[in-house]
């Protein structure tokens, strides 16, 4: 009985203690349910977001660059479909076999094979290896034919920059290529949109207009697993192509410039004298920017880099030359404006001029005899301009020259390789060389030698501003939103109205004191080309439709010694490096002028022989295309 009593007591204890535990259990379970509730109901949104962040990953695709078109809408920098070949290593059954097959099909080099193997070791097995960035159509078809045998190979179609006119626009457009680290860091937009394989502008307008041209990334959303492997695609968001940029240039004329300067070092600049539109800007020799798209080969690069004619230099903007006799219209204008000379003023040229025991030679040894402004300009008499420069002084000449755009950048910030050149004055020499100005230096400045340095585009603008009657223009190469037509520009200039929306008054645009003086200089330039004994008489066109006025120039590269002067060597007998640069500036047609140009042939010899004949060939084309251009601008205005 005692035992059973104890058993009952024990059972009571067990039951009582079980009850306490049971209550505790219920409380704990309620606690766990509360925790579940807080995670799954209260914080559900937060954890759903985290879960999506885990599993969804975005891939940016390279943006499509905007096109660059010429004035007529022809694409000069576009985009091309290219065929690429990718390998996805994890899908490949036998990697070595595949490489052998591809090597035979595509003629891959051993170096390339080694590179692929290296990439394979570095990348994750599901990351694709780009075997070829640019397959030819033939190769692409071949790969597709054998695709059944090439497991793990993926032919991909993508878009790449393309320059359809090859070397015609290289110095204007520049080119695109893979950015380096510095370039990515320096540009916020590139940094945001960068993806491997993307190309950015490296030079020229491609670089300057990067932020307009770049476009936005297409975005692909993928579901990925914990190891970052793509499982499936969820969404594809299209990117926006970069803005289209329309230039003022004319591809036909630009192409002609290239042909005319073929195998020569030099440049041609052509400008609308009223709107400032740059019609052509060609630097020779050029090179094919398409070479840079997929990485230029070392051999090709060395060929371009070591070419003695220096294709890498944009000679229109960065080439600095003594203007030689092409400066003479400005010297004459400055003297007229300052009332130093008039049309009757005459100088006797004996072939040389003595000053403080120093001899200054005219190009014609025998001399020109008594010459007036018109004859001096026509025959490019140096003695006359020595005397005029002496009377004028370099400081007054400098004022006129700078007014017409010498010593200043023409296109402002558009090209970071543009040089501003130099037009000296006494103050400049004092400040920069620490020496006083010497009168002899004034004389040689009067014939465009000495310290004076100018770019071909500056000479072109200078000529354009003489041609349009002496009004300032603002040269441009990009068509803006509200382009001013040729007629409007001309009319407003001549009628005294404002011709530029953001300019102040016409007074500021007027570069002369007396319009008569401009006319005198224009006539002198006309005679230089169209009258007998004119330096470019041989290159004239008699048809008034195409008739142009110009001024030759021959810029010495080195000082001519007495011995050399006596020898009077032929061009071919002088080493290439020592030959004179040939220059020519001109505008036309003479009646109702429309365009100005400057031509420089480096080491071409005399301007009349090497440069002026090019102008003759070019002017016909330029004038012929004028109507087309005019129509284009009208058409454009209607659509806007």
């Amino acid at each position, binding site marked *: 009985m005692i035992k059973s009593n104890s058993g009952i007591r024990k059972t009571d*204890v067990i*039951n009582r203690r079980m009850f306490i535990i049971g209550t505790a259990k219920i409380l704990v379970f309620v606690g766990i349910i509360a925790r579940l509730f807080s995670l799954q109901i209260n914080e*559900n949104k937060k954890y759903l977001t985290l879960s999506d962040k*885990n599993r969804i990953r975005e891939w940016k695709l390279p943006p499509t660059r905007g096109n660059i078109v010429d004035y007529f809408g022809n694409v000069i920098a576009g985009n091309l479909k290219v065929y690429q070949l990718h390998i996805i290593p994890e899908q490949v059954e036998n990697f070595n076999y595949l490489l052998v097959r591809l090597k035979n099909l595509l003629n891959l080099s051993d170096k390339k094979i080694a590179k692929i193997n290296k990439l394979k070791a570095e990348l994750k097995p599901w990351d694709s290896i780009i075997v070829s960035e640019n397959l030819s159509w033939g190769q692409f078809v071949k790969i597709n034919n054998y695709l059944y045998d090439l497991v793990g190979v993926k032919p991909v179609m993508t878009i790449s920059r393309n320059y359809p006119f090859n070397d015609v626009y290289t110095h204007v457009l520049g080119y695109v290529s893979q950015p380096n680290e510095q370039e990515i860091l320096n540009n916020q937009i590139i940094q945001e949109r960068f993806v491997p394989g993307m190309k950015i502008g490296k030079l020229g307008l491609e670089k300057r207009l990067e932020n307009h041209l770049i476009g936005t990334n297409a975005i692909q959303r993928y579901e990925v*697993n914990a190891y970052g492997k793509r499982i499936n695609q969820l969404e594809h968001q299209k990117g926006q192509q970069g803005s289209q940029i329309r230039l003022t240039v004319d591809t036909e004329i630009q192409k002609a410039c290239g042909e005319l300067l073929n195998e020569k070092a030099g440049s041609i600049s052509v400008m609308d004298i009223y709107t400032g539109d740059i019609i052509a800007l060609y630097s020779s020799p050029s090179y094919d920017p398409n070479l840079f798209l997929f990485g230029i080969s070392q051999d090709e690069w060395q060929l371009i880099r070591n070419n003695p004619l220096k294709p890498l230099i944009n000679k229109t903007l960065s080439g600095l030359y003594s203007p030689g006799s092409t400066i003479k219209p400005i010297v004459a204008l400055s003297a007229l404006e300052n009332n130093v000379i008039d049309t009757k003023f005459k100088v006797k040229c004996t072939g040389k001029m003595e000053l403080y025991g120093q001899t200054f030679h005219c190009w014609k040894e025998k001399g020109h005899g008594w010459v007036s402004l018109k004859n001096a300009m026509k025959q490019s008499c140096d003695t006359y301009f020595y005397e005029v420069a002496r009377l004028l002084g370099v400081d007054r000449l400098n004022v006129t020259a700078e007014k017409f755009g010498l010593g200043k950048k023409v296109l402002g910030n558009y090209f970071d390789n543009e040089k501003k050149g130099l037009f000296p004055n006494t103050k400049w020499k004092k400040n920069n060389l620490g020496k006083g100005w010497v009168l002899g230096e004034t004389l040689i400045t009067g014939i465009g030698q000495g310290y004076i340095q100018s770019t071909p585009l500056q000479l072109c603008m200078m000529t354009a501003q003489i041609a349009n009657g002496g009004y300032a223009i603002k040269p441009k190469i990009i068509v803006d939103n509200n382009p001013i037509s040729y007629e409007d520009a001309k009319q407003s200039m001549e009628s005294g109205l404002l011709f530029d929306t953001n300019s102040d008054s016409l007074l500021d645009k007027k570069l002369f004191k007396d319009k008569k003086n401009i006319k005198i200089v224009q006539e002198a330039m006309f005679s230089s080309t169209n009258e007998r004994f004119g330096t470019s008489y041989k290159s004239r066109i008699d048809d008034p439709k195409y008739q142009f006025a110009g001024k030759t120039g021959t810029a010495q590269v080195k000082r001519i010694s007495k011995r050399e002067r006596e020898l009077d060597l032929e061009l071919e007998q002088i080493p290439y490096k020592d030959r004179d640069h040939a220059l020519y500036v001109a505008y036309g047609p003479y009646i109702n002028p429309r365009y100005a140009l400057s031509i420089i042939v480096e080491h071409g010899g005399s301007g009349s022989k090497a440069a002026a004949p090019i102008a003759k060939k070019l002017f016909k084309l330029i004038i012929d295309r004028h109507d087309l251009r005019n129509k284009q601008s009208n058409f454009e205005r209607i659509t806007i």
Partner: protein
Amino acid sequence: MFQHNRLNNELTLLQKIKNLDYILLISVLLLSAISVFVMYSTDGGEILFHTKNHFVKLTVFFPLMIFIAFFNIKFWHNFSYIIYIIVILLLIYVSFFGIKASGSQRWMDVYLFVLQPSELMKIAIIMCLAKYYHRLKIENVNSFTSITIVLSIILIPTIFVVSQPDLGTSILIALSGLIILWLGGVKVKYFIYSFITFLISLPFIISFLKPYQKLRILTFLDPDRDPLGAGYQIIQSKIAIGSGGLDGKGFLKGTQSYLDFLPEKHTDFIFTLFSEEFGFVGSVGLLILYSIIIFRIIRIGSISRSNFARLFCFGYAFAIFIYIVVNLSMVLGLLPIVGSPLPIMSYGGSSMLATMIGFGIVLSAKINHKQMIA
């Protein structure tokens, strides 16, 4: 007298089958079925290694449970000490000749599968202590000798398991043992005193922990201190559960598990996957199912005539409860990560075997609930 005689006679097989607890049986069966489907989901919606093995183990261990149930509870009472000693011997064997894996030595190869004796100890300790208290006079419960013996019974296997090392299982073994002490009637103040002593010596205990165990505790306190390293498991686990929402992402649609963000999703973190796919509703449903099982075990204990059966059932119900609480608290970020499986749901043969043996003895207690044990 007649009644007494009848009870002493063995029940016929038919009577045994009739006396089985069908609510418990169906609940366990239902839980098993759910576990197979969840395992199928961890395999990414295919019948692969884990699903197959889990299913095979269930088809072996479930009948084993019923087989055990058909033995008289008296039989289990009689063999309790021997079973305890056998498991202790297995633990000793394992500590010398056991299979090493991921830094600990706790398994032995028994041809059909790899056995983890520490899992069996979870049941053996309950049996052993239930028998001890069944036989102990109530007056002696709080005697120095009995408490010393009881604590030794708990401490010996715990020390073996800790040294494997397997902190999670050793804590569960100790807790399973302590609950019998509680139920047996050991004074409340002893529990309070030793709890206070434990708290005071906690810093001392922590200094004895292995570096990875310390890291787990630190990670528990602040999972974001190393989100890709030590904190990864708990962060991903919480994301999976939290993103499940009210009704879950749907069967086979748990992105966290499908895309491999969940660690150990077959074993300790199985609830995470379940909760991601079936949401709050499913999780509470699973808890209710477990509650039914626990309640049925307690009920069987309370109708048992013998204190051995009663103590075993109450103790085992508490053990199941503790396994669930420790596992869920761990995946819900309420406790540091200690390896502890979710009964039946988690992949793992030894854990399932132990659980099924436990259910078998409970069912035996049910069949023979009128059985007196002297």
